[in-house]
């Protein structure tokens, strides 16, 4: 049994490599990253002078890591949905999707191929940015393993963003609507998940949070905050904001999750599960045997 590429991944990579989009994409990505780097450097230099130290800025360069990482996380979160949201609806617009569905590709492998090719394309960008990232390590003295963890989290994030995009792509007939819809999904996952916590805090003066924080397990903001907290300080976000919660303040489950690295791993698992659910939903929607009346075809 030979290992085989998903044909869609192979084709997508082949086609994007030939188009100008990849070159421009790398160019834009590196430009933004360089800007973030220079800005951070300027701030660090400023800081190191003002607090009247030895003028040795190397110790501060460690902060380049979170700055550059967060910049990349933001770019990735913003562009991946655009890639995948236009993938299935783009095939529909170009009228290539019907042929694809009559082949032996199962709807799930089509969806998986589309997401995988988006993740791989993003990894090109991230890899191209590695030399800049490496500066933070060489000069800042961080362990190399952090770089590896960082790539893993980027893959996780692009998987989530990609699966949101693909679901919207399966739901919409036009690519533009799909992109807009993915940002609506973003709003739900990134912003609305804070709602229970905020409501609970307002209602009980922050005294009794119960389990309202659990929904934040799927929030990538919190995931990355926790990730950087753990890397930079070795502490949990929940532990660092004052002492750990007392048992009375939060529910039993939340209390136990805020110990050690439990939250981080559980959150990663939740985000991964959510991505898979989105992809399954997209595959279900794409399967012609499931949609009841069939979509109106434009001619």
């Amino acid at each position, binding site marked *: 049994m030979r290992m085989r590429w998903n044909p869609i991944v192979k084709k997508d990579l*082949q*086609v994007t490599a030939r*188009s100008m989009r990849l070159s421009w994409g790398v160019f834009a990505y590196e430009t933004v990253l360089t800007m973030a780097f220079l800005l951070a450097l300027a701030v660090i230099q400023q800081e190191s002078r003002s607090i009247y130290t030895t003028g040795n800025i190397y110790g501060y360069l460690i902060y380049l890591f979170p700055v550059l990482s967060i910049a990349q996380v933001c770019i990735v979160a913003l562009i991946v949905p655009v890639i995948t949201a236009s993938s299935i609806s783009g095939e529909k617009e170009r*009228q290539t999707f019907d042929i694809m569905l*009559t082949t*032996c590709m199962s709807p799930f492998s089509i969806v998986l191929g589309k997401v995988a090719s988006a993740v791989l394309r993003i990894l090109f960008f991230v890899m191209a940015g590695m030399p800049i990232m490496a500066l933070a390590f060489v000069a800042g003295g961080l362990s190399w393993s952090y770089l590896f963890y960082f790539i893993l989290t980027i893959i996780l994030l692009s998987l989530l963003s990609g699966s949101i995009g693909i679901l919207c792509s399966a739901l919409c007939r036009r690519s533009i609507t799909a992109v807009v819809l993915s940002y609506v999904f973003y709003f739900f996952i990134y912003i609305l998940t804070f709602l229970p916590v905020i409501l609970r805090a307002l209602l009980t003066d922050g005294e009794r949070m119960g389990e309202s924080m659990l929904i934040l397990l799927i929030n990538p903001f919190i995931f990355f905050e926790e990730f950087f907290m753990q890397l930079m300080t070795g502490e949990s976000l929940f532990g660092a904001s004052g002492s750990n919660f007392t048992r009375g303040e939060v529910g039993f489950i939340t209390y136990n999750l805020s110990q050690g690295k439990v939250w981080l791993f559980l959150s990663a698992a939740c985000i991964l599960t959510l991505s898979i659910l989105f992809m399954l939903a997209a595959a279900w929607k794409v399967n012609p045997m499931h949609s*009841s009346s069939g979509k109106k075809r434009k001619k």
Partner: protein
Amino acid sequence: MLYINDLIKNYGSFTAVNHLSLHIPEGDLFGFVGPNGAGKTTTIRIVCGLLRASGGTVRIGNTAAAVGSKEMKRLIGYVPDFFGVYDNLKVREYMDLYGSMYGMYSRDIAKLTDDLLELVNLSDKKEVYVDTLSRGMKQRLCVARALLHNPSLLILDEPSSGLDPRARVEMKELLKNLHSMGKTIVISSHILSELSEMCNSIGIMNQGRLLTAGRIEDVMKQIAGGNRMRIQIASGMETAQRILKEQAGVKIESVRENEILILSNCTDQAVNAFIGLMIQNQVILTGFYKEEGSLETLFMQLTGGGAQ
């Protein structure tokens, strides 16, 4: 080969395919004819697993595979009525892409691609980008693509729409060629003359119903009873019309200056009798022709009747 049984497709309250039953034997070149909106594409899409039927069954060969299953898809090669191609992809890579979607290995695909491109006359375009091909070439490439996994049934939805006459002839030759190789082929079209030249069986569809289907000779025979006749008259036009109107089974289709076109399903004796009657009544006949039953007339008769 292809058994369609009591197929129904509803869009809301609208019925696009209405209790369609059809059997296409192996090795046939079957023409699926019907006016716009008859439900041909809908039927084809159901067979290909792109649309869920509201009722009925579709079976291919002796397999019990369900519509839309992998086994079923492996048996069908489908060329849609409208399709696109990818930018930045070469013909060779295009074939490789679809071949690998059927789980074939690149080396086997490459070998087959050469043969198939030869067959559809695109050998010299192997390294050309697909989006730069002409419409006719894309159509032929799509046929080659549909043959890649060696399906037992090839379905083409309006393969000659948008093609110029020359490309049509080429497409027709290609299909005849495939037919002679023993492939079972289904073509939908509304260009009847084209189908009557190459198909050996046809089915006529209108408003979701299959009006008639069978060997082309048998279908033609059905119109033998409803022949169109052309009677040319030098004088005595009124008398002739009066006599014709009195005949049961004769319908006057049109009257021109010195010509009457009728549709009759009378016996030859009856025809003889009313022509004799005309001559007795001093009608001067200059010509009398029985028109060959063409697919067009059959089509007009059947679909016209359905619309009433």
